[in-house]
């Protein structure tokens, strides 16, 4: 089939298969991909609204046994640079988030063998007891799988317990590319195979929770594997309808074991546009300004995105891999309006919650994203001593910090 006839089907609102998607991705001009994606965006969001969310991106621990070779963020068990945030530190971050109008934490972290399922349950319960309306968008599928393995409870039971403790929705991290050849090369096959990632999401959706979906491209993947990833997400969305949004970003190679070079800005815009075309059952696509910078982030709005993502407030993972961009609410709104759209605040399920907040009340401008912890802060939270550690360094650390209460 010719590119023109595939494009015609997309314009008519028809679905294209993986083979046709690959033909478009590798053969269509960037302008054509952009126009097709923009057409779909305009049909799905005819009001011209572009949304964003005020929430905070917190990584509760950087200790991880998965050791993905594309990750610059993790520290091995026993590392002097490893950290676990304490409940009080997290409460402070929630207070700061609420002060700038945020109502949610995006909470993700490493696969820390010394944090049992009970730690998460206690944390979530404590947050909900203190801030009943505050939302927890937390724990990507590989983290849930890790907790299932650690606790020896089935995934469905882990999800049930986390929801009972206060989990509201699940971020789509850890998907990378949902093709096992790629996952083996990235050393992330054992943290979750493609089927396992999708299976956890199926459990999450069956439990009544909504989630996002992601794709990290540009490491060792081929164009055909990116298309396969998108098709697998589309299939699950057909089945459950549980995904609220899709976010793609390029692999950030600095400081990683895998190294290499970052995909270009054009690669990003083409991949975003293709995602909009293939994911015809997803309502929302986010711009990844945190990896692409504000300018290409804004251009995403011409290539299929209808959402500028989060103001983030804090970011640790992408920064560890060398990218440091910051956009506060005023800057996000300026970019949305400059592109000809109407900015609205949203929540995780994409309900509109209001107009830009900084126009209603004074909010200090921010020129840099916060970090999980100030450099050199190696403190160990008191409450950790209440939980059993599995690793030898973890057990030694807890023995040194005092007896566990009965």
């Amino acid at each position, binding site marked *: 089939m010719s590119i023109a006839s595939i494009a015609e089907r997309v314009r008519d609102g028809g679905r294209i298969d993986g083979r046709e998607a690959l033909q478009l991705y590798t053969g269509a001009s960037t302008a054509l991909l952009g126009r097709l994606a923009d057409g779909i965006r305009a049909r799905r969001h005819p009001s011209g609204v572009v949304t964003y969310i005020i929430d905070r991106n917190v990584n509760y621990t950087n200790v991880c046994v998965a050791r993905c070779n594309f990750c610059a963020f993790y520290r091995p068990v026993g590392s002097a640079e490893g950290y676990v945030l304490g409940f009080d530190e997290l409460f402070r971050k929630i207070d700061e988030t609420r002060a700038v109008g945020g109502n949610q934490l995006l909470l993700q972290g490493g696969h820390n063998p010394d944090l049992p399922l009970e730690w998460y349950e206690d944390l979530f319960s404590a947050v909900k007891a203190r801030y009943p309306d505050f939302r927890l968008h937390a724990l990507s599928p590989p983290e849930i799988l890790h907790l299932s393995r650690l606790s020896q409870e089935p995934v469905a039971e882990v999800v049930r317990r986390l929801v009972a403790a206060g989990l509201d929705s699940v971020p789509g991290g850890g998907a990378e590319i949902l093709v096992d050849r790629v996952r083996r090369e990235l050393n992330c096959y054992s943290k979750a195979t493609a089927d396992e990632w999708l299976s956890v999401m199926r459990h999450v959706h069956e439990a009544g929770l909504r989630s996002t979906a992601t794709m990290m491209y540009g490491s060792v993947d081929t164009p055909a594997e990116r298309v396969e990833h998108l098709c697998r997400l589309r299939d699950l969305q057909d089945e459950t309808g549980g995904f609220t949004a899709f976010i793609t970003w390029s692999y950030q190679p600095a400081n990683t074991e895998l190294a290499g070079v970052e995909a*270009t800005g054009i690669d990003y815009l083409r991949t975003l546009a293709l995602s909009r075309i293939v994911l015809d059952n997803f309502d929302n696509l986010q711009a990844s300004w945190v990896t692409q910078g504000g*300018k290409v982030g804004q251009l995403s709005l011409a290539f299929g995105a209808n959402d500028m993502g989060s103001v983030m407030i804090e970011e640790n993972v992408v920064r560890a891999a060398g990218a440091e961009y910051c956009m506060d609410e005023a800057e996000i709104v300026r970019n949305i309006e400059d592109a000809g759209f109407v900015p609205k605040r949203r929540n995780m399920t994409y309900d509109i919650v209001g107009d830009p907040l900084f126009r209603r009340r004074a909010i200090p401008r921010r020129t840099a994203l916060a970090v999980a912890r100030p450099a050199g802060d190696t403190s160990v939270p008191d409450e950790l001593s209440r939980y059993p550690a599995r690793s030898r360094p973890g057990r030694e650390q807890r023995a040194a910090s005092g007896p566990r209460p009965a």
Partner: protein
Amino acid sequence: MHDDLAAVLDKVEAGETLDEGDWRALTGGHDLIALGMAADGARRRRHGDRATFVQVVPVPVDAPALAEPVAADAGELRLTGRPETPSAAVAAVRALAVRADGAPVTGFAYGDLEALCGHDAARLGDLLVELREAGLARLTSLAADAPNPETVVAVLGGSGLGVSGLTLGGAAGDDARRLLQRVGSWDGVGGVCRALAPLSPVEASPPATGYADLRQVALARLLVDNIDSIQVDWSRHGPKLAQVALTFGADDVDAVPAAASPDQGWRRSPREEIRRNITAAGFVPVPRNGRFEALQS
């Protein structure tokens, strides 16, 4: 594409005069891709699928000695900063030219030299000749709002020194549009000025948005027919925006570093990096030197 934008783009292509409504459709509309496609068409008619780039070694005008040998990939040694006096400018060119190892030496803003010469066209003409004889290949920049455009063309033409880039000096929006119109009707400017660099040389506060930058690049290509190249700056605007600009009417990338900088964490040489970016944008990369001569790949 909105009908009014399509009609305006037809008028642009036919070389017709634009009225106020046309300008509003061009600059105020949000169909960025349509504007980019039109600019890309104009750019391809002129340059095909070639995209040129130059690798530059910046050298401060007050310290023109080179600390290291000229990098093999250097296509231009560029004196940066404002000289204190006309003779300091000539001395800096001489000092650098003997170490240039064949790479063209460029430098100076036309306006700075004009000020050093007390805005006396005859003195400026003499200085330009002296600079050329000392080894200067081109001036670096000329402001699009330079007074007396006919004199500028006459002085430059008489001296035999061309200018690499005509700049809008940070103008944006309506101001930029007025300057682009001025440039478009500036007789003879294309004979002395090889490229137009439409984006701001310094980042404004708040920074220009991606849409604003690309709109300005596209409008520059669509409205300025008398200058050959539309140029973006790799170092200043960043690889991502510079690359996308190539699909919105730009055909030349300025200021690619001549050597890798370990503190920026590059894992590939800048030449490989720029080639990869140009190719990924759908163009054929062509290295050039500071005289705009194509180099062997």
